[in-house]
């Protein structure tokens, strides 16, 4: 019975831990879990992930702050006090920059001063402007996940969407806005769809993995835009890689006077989120695509055309990403310039993950990240903390959302009732 050998790594059964659990709970039917509890569970992890991400971001802010070290060298208490002050200053600037100052908003409302109100609401509307491309991009990646595809190519699709939208936006003249706006916006979607179709088609026909192909297509899109902007699409009177300004008739309508930039794109984004939800969960096509995404073997068994679903999934994902690109050109920038997007597509992956690939979740995550990104400017202005800190926070949030076990351990949450995480992850690899 003596056994010198200690700790052989006989880990818990690979997938059977949840299986066992399922087996055990399934026979005597447990009480139907309340819907609200489920939603609470779904929100708890992302919310705590954001909280923890901000907390760790605060640690970074403090550790990179010279005044903290200066205070710490006086005494640890002084250091802690200083750390607290730094974080409070930074995060209140972040908050005010993202949402606006409640005091100003209230006073503007009381005084019925439209100009002051515009000023007071400006931060909030800027957050919405920043969130808009994230909504489109997040929906793109989320739709991909639902079909079992990992669309890393959103960035390239955004570029293609922007190129198409910009071209239609400046080259076609004399159209009324009522026609020109939808036309250019659809052109953006088409550009992205085209760029999504290619890897979808390659995967369906040859089995080439979409992760590799979308990454490659990203580069092609970047270089293509460089080429176009120094050649065919270059502004005639300029030597710089900038496209002509789009026609006024193609500009997405802005709802308020300057400086508020909130535009029609935001409403379209919300509309698309609803449409994606409806499509995925309420139509037979959505059922078909989701089945392929969740279990392509079973989908094939049930008579579904799996290759078509892959092509369709990538194309639709591309279209959504293309809208993100079009939205930026038509709603905010009014032209296409070199390197116009640095990372919307990649941030979108984080947003889709955080939103659990659900359109509503994506919208919430996009609003959050839009607010963080927007607020970061004020934070930088007030405290000199680089905007990159938001990227760090975002990276932490992503880690925690992707590995909820960490959050659960930190906050001693109960494991999920039905092994839902596993399902999420299984739809990743795409095969």
């Amino acid at each position, binding site marked *: 019975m003596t056994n010198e050998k200690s700790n052989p790594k006989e880990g818990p059964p690979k997938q059977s831990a949840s299986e066992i659990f399922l087996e055990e709970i399934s026979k005597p039917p447990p009480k139907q879990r309340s819907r609200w509890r489920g939603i609470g569970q779904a929100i708890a992890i992302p919310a705590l992930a954001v909280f923890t991400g901000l907390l760790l971001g605060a640690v970074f802010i403090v550790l990179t702050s010279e*005044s903290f070290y*200066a*205070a710490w060298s*006086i*005494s640890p*208490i*002084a250091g802690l*006090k*200083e750390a607290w*002050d730094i974080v409070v200053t930074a995060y209140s600037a972040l908050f005010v920059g993202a949402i606006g100052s409640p005091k100003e908003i209230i006073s503007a409302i009381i005084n019925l001063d439209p100009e002051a109100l515009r000023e007071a609401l400006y931060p909030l509307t*800027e957050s919405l*402007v*920043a969130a808009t491309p994230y909504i489109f991009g997040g929906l793109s990646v989320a739709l991909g996940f639902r079909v079992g595809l990992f669309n890393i190519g959103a960035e390239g699709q955004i570029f293609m969407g922007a190129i198409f939208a910009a071209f239609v936006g400046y080259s076609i003249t004399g159209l009324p806005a009522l026609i020109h706006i939808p036309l250019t916006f659809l052109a953006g979607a088409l550009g992205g769809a085209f760029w999504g179709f290619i890897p979808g088609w390659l995967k369906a026909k040859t089995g080439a993995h979409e992760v590799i192909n979308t990454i490659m297509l990203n580069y092609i899109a*970047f*270089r293509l835009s*460089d080429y176009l902007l*120094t050649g065919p699409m270059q502004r005639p009177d*300029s*030597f*710089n*890689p*900038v496209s002509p*300004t789009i026609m006024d008739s193609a500009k997405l309508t802005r709802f308020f006077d*300057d*400086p508020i*930039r909130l535009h029609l794109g935001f409403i379209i984004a919300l509309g698309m989120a609803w449409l994606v939800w409806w499509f995925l969960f309420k139509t037979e096509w959505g059922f078909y695509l989701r089945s392929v995404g969740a279990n392509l073997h079973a989908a094939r068994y049930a008579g579904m055309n799996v290759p078509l679903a892959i092509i369709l999934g990538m194309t639709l994902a591309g279209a959504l990403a293309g809208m993100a690109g079009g939205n*930026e050109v038509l709603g*905010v*920038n*009014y*032209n296409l*310039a*070199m*390197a*116009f*997007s*640095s*990372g*919307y597509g990649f941030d979108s992956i984080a947003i889709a993950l955080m939103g659990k690939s659900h359109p509503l979740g994506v919208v919430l995550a996009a609003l959050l990240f839009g607010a963080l*990104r*927007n607020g970061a*400017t*004020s934070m*930088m*202005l007030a405290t*000199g903390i*680089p*905007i990159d800190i938001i990227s760090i926070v975002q990276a932490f949030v992503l880690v925690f959302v992707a590995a909820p076990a960490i959050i659960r351990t930190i906050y001693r949450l109960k494991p999920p009732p039905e092994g839902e995480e596993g399902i999420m992850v299984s739809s990743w690899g795409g095969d």
Partner: protein
Amino acid sequence: MTKKLFSLLAILIVAAMVLGACAPAATPTAAPVEPTAVPTEAPPEPTEVPTEVPPEPTEPPATEPPATEPPAVFKACQVTDTGGIDDKSFNATAWKGVEEAMAEFGIEGKYLESQQQTDYEKNLKAFVDEGCNIIITVGFLLGDATAAASTTYPDMMFSIVDYAYDPVLPNVLGQVFTTDEAAFLAGYAAAGMTKTGKVATFGGIQIPTVTVFMDGFALGVQYYNQQKGTAVEVLGWDPATQTGSFTGNFESKEDGRTLGLSFIDEGADIIMPVAGPVGEGTAAAVKERGNAWVIGVDADWYETVPDYKDIVLTSVLKNMNITTKGAIQAAMEGTFAGGVIVGTLENGGVGLAPFHDADSLVPAELKAELETIAAEIIAGNIPTSP
């Protein structure tokens, strides 16, 4: 109880910090007291870059003295393009100008990094709201946004680096550079220094601010050939057809290394990469082979990329810091006007960096010729662009 103690402590600490913080702040406030010395204090820098500089440094000192109750300190604010503040290129160099202005004039400097094109407009507005006195924008990417902001905020002063408007905007000062003049000298020097008879240059992306370097460089080599009857060859750029080698990006050091190696393999022994950080890869390739030189661009690479200082022959300087500081100074002195300042060889806006460690290797004759040529260029006797 403990809470009270803590607050007390906190107040003490904060007080200590405020006092401590005052100490360094005192130096800049002292500096403007003798502002007359400022322009002369920096002899190598021709601070009279602004189109007209009637030296009227009476205003700033008048407002500065009651500095104990901090008055509206002059604020110079820079919006970077998506390259960020530490791009080792124009954002960084322009910021250096702001920093120099901060040190010299005791003003406040701020910057905002743009992450997306959409941030430009927002950041410009943020600085207007912040009460900045002059806003420096950097690069053609901010061209449209700066123009738009100048109309929205007609009372604000703007200066944009590496960009100019035609027609000029009343409250925007464009900073452009005749980089070809300095690159011409570099080309001439390269032609005089090459042992293989081949020199090379390449760009990041084919845009005017890049090719202007390559034009000057190639013409400099041509001029040397004309003068000396030599046949030094330029790889990577043909000014006549405007075609040549480009990495297609300003990021990949690996691309710079590969291209550098292939130029060396083709026999080039002096390479001028005009591609921002990509050039560091080329420097690495040169160091790897050990039988070639690089010529830096924008800043003096001997100082900014010290890892490779032993293989830096010289650098083509584009002193955006000097023009930026000049713009700030003009704004402070009330002489600011919209238009264009051109950084030239003549006013020191562009130039050739010292040879530093390579100095002893450069023949005195060549150095003398370079000086003569510089004078000729300034005089307008030698064309430096095709």
